[in-house]
């Protein structure tokens, strides 16, 4: 990897952060993995491939809602970003099919909790 210089950091600081769209994040800390986030992540990647959907599927740490793991945050254009909790393989497939492809939120699995930045 290229060495990072002071100027590189200046450049990053000067660049305004554009809010990301079209991504899925799966909570992959110990709490998430223990609840089955591995499987959920694999299902999401597989379903995206199957349906030929191009979306950034990434892992992230724990947001703190450990009671609702595995957590999947979905942001697609035209819909508010939401966090799904207690996701399993079936729900992961449903999220891909309904939310990402069909632009309809999935019932019963949204955990809507707000924190101050």
């Amino acid at each position: 990897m290229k060495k990072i210089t002071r100027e590189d950091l200046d450049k990053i600081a000067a660049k305004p952060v554009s809010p990301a769209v079209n991504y899925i994040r799966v909570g992959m800390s110990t709490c998430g993995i223990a609840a089955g986030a591995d499987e959920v992540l694999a299902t999401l990647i597989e379903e995206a491939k199957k349906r030929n959907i191009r979306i950034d599927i990434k892992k992230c740490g724990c947001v703190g809602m450990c009671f609702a793991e595995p957590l999947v945050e979905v942001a697609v254009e035209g819909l508010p970003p939401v966090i799904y909790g207690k996701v399993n393989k079936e729900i992961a497939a449903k999220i891909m099919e309904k939310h990402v492809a069909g632009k309809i939120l999935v019932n019963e699995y949204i955990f809507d909790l707000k924190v101050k930045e």
Partner: protein
Amino acid sequence: MYNKTILIKDTNINAEDRTKNYYSLVLNSLREFNLHNEVQVVRAADIGVYNHGVVIKILPDVIYQEVKETDIPRIVEATVKADKVLDDLVLKKEPKQQRIVLRNCGKIDPESLEEYLAAGGYQALKKVIFEMNPEKVLEEMKKSGLRGRGGAGYPTWMKWKFTRAVPADQKFVICNADEGDPGAYMDRSVLEGDPHSVLEGLMISAYTIGASKGYFYIRAEYPLAVERVKIALAQAYDAGLLGKNILGSEFSFDIDIRLGAGAFVCGEETALIASIEGKRGTPRPRPPYPSVKGLWNKPTAINNVETLANISPIIVRGGDWFASIGTATSKGTKVFAVTGKVKNSGLVEVPMGITIREIVFDICGGTISGKALKAIQTGGPSGGVIPAEFLDTPVDYENLQKLGSIMGSGGMIVMDEDDCLVDIAKFYLGFCVEESCGKCAPCRIGGYQMLQILNRITEGKGKLEDLAQLKRISFAMQKASLCGLGQTAANPVISTTRYFDYEYKEHILEKKCRSGKCSHLANYTIIQERCKKCGMCQKNCPAGAIPGSREEGYLIKQEKCVKCGQCFEVCKFKAIKKE
């Protein structure tokens, strides 16, 4: 395509769930206003509000509480159609959580340096190296009022200042990630979710005190955290953020990882140092403090994971900003791991000064059973219990200490009516007895003796004199133990005897445990109507106290029963009554 979203959730847990009913009512109403193609309605699993009837939320931020069926048409007409807020229904809800330590957790990929950089990472390091000097950093840290998040609450800037002031050819910094309190896992989450932020904090502390070498001391029970820190270190070395001449400056710094083998006492700083040196992990008397004679007898600054994660925001946004959050003596935020009998267990980061009630009821949704809350345990085995009547106490270092508990690393265990406080005290003391390194007598012998007494009390063999004896031994342990483990090991006993004296007395005098936790004090009988005559209880009874046969049924002979509770555990039909 929809351009508006409505979330619905019935937040009364003990009543019938009306969510589906309201869902169709809202859909019908939308149809009447011909909005059903523009607005989508979704049933949520959790809407962030608890015990406020049916809650309807129109994204992004209008929340209506206690909604009646008759309110639905006017909500749709006013808010959905015309964006007007109905003042009589609206719930004004400022978010209670504020994230500084967990700012990136759950938002960035912990294994990607690019994402950390994009989120403002290493800007603080740059600022420290090129725009500030160590004195300025200390000044900023002093302004911020940040205190150590490991438990004792020692001002971070003072620790750094002392370490900086000692002349030495080599100094060290250590990140203490030996988190061992039962039920606490804040540090693990930060290391797993945002390892670079801790790394950056450690680098800034090294720059400030003039250290050239640092260690992450992580317990081996956290393999994922270890792996992610390893990845972060490799990335930082690759990118020139670690090693020689960082960012082209004069500052050079190296970091290694050391794994703890799981001894609780190794979270104590002198024991931790011994462990890194390859010796047996036992504490030594202080002074000299590690800031004077630490690792390999060199000046060493040891900071907790959460403390270090606070550093970069303080540098970037200034000490005054940090000091504006929190109370007079405790600044900033604190991450708590709320566990036990609570509805939403997990991590919460709240500004200091918030009440325990707000944390447990507003953020975490109250007890999971809906039963009354009995007490909160904070600070792990070194802390104490806080009974329900003090729920409105603002949380900070001093207030918790006044109540006989401590802030500790941030474990918060919620207990309801089904928990026996004598049993809880026994559990925590048992933990400390197990983890005592055995070096000093007050901790080694005192802890064991106290545990014997508590065992007697929970078995119904306690005497009233035992309470005085517990107090005497607690006092001796507090005064004479070598390190924090022994000095605080008696705290759970002291605080439970202080607030729940009547429970101890019930155990001793009436041989009764009101929560039914202490199996030795319970009476077991068979409920004949429920009994399916399977014989499991007879098979498992170690005392032969359950005569009978599969034809005639069974009976527990009270005079033979040893109250082990085996029959109660194995009965599949809940036909054994425990009282």
